């Protein structure tokens, strides 16, 4: 199993509950905004603490409320691509990409499929939305993740950019063979990229 997630979380006045056991490939959390999809990603990444439940990814227990296990985010090896990219504004693209391993030379071959070689000396504020998202994917990949969390990776991009990023995600799913947990509210996107689709209701 790549993702085994059972969790409950009360956030404000809504309850998020999810019970999911997924094999290899890409798993899509699909549902309207407000269903708590991003909160699920945050809980898998360790940025938000579930009230109860367990989170296991690729056989490793990241969180288990009853056993008192709660790995800090830096030990979960999540490659989290945030919807808003969250590039570090005070670091150039190159240093954003190298953030996880500042001592390592930048492994451009590994992220060649993203087409960001030309952007290395730019500041994040000088990137378009599509460029920023590709850099964010590259930064996550270069952290040697054990799995990927993608939050609306195709939202607010034009058709050409959506195609580029879709191809990149397919590459990660089929060539790098990383387990992927992806959030979307777009049915076409879900059908194209997902091996299985988990509906979440608001």
């Amino acid at each position: 199993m790549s993702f085994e997630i059972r969790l409950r979380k009360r956030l404000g006045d809504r309850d998020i509950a999810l019970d999911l056991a997924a094999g290899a490939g890409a798993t899509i959390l699909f549902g309207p905004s407000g269903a708590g999809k991003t909160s699920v990603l945050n809980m898998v990444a360790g940025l938000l603490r579930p009230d109860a439940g367990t989170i296991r990814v690729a056989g490793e227990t990241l969180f288990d409320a009853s056993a008192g296990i709660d790995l800090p985010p830096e030990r979960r090896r999540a490659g989290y691509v945030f919807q808003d990219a969250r590039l570090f504004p005070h670091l150039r693209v190159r240093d954003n990409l190298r953030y996880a391993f500042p001592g390592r030379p930048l492994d451009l071959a590994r992220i060649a499929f993203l087409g960001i070689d030309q952007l290395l000396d730019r500041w994040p504020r000088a990137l378009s939305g599509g460029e920023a998202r590709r850099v964010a994917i590259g930064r996550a990949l270069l952290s040697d993740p054990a799995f990927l969390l993608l939050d609306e990776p195709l939202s607010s991009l034009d058709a050409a950019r959506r195609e580029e990023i879709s191809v990149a995600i397919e590459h990660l799913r089929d060539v790098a063979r990383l387990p992927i947990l992806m959030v979307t509210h777009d049915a076409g996107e879900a059908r194209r990229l997902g091996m299985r689709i988990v509906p979440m209701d608001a």
Partner: protein
Amino acid sequence: MLTAAEWEIVLLSLQVGGAALLVTLPIAFALAWLLARTTFPGKILLDAAIHLPLVVPPVVTGWLLLLAFAPAGPLGRLLEQTFGISVLFRWTGAAIAAGIMALPLMVRAIRLSLEAVDRRLEGAARTLGASPARVFRTITLPLALPGVLAGTVLGFARALGEFGATITFVSNVPGQTQTLPLAIYSALQQPGGDAMVLRLSAISVALSLAALVASELLARRAGRGVHVL
């Protein structure tokens, strides 16, 4: 343009202001962090207490410092017994007074700059494998730095202008505690001191103006998301 004695006053003021900053900055940063990033019972009281020097008459602050650092006072006795020193009538005492008066301004500026740091970026750094200490060093501090520097410069300007608490606490001793404002005050009491008042006042205004401009430029940088280092 300035006489040798006047230069000494300027240098003494810079020394007092610089020492005040050196001691106050880490304390101000720690307090700003507590206020910006933590919740605890009595937080509003701590916040109010830090701001007291801004609103209490400086002469009261000076008197309280005098009580604390007098030979029989708690801090005065401690310093005397541990290091065999006293800060009374010394430039170190002037630096303490200046530091206390600068503290609220610095805490305010640093707190605002810490609050302006996007916590989600810190979360992103954690998911990339960074420990909380590394996140602080590589994300939080660089992003807050323009605001921290702006607050520091502002605090320095405030320290240079300190008058009431200083003269109450450590008196007006030439060469020790007679900083720019105190020297101006003394010159005003002397017949024929007008020229000196004019020159020292001009220096004071120039230093304050430079500090305010520097602080404003740094604060604007922080606001634009442009970073100093």
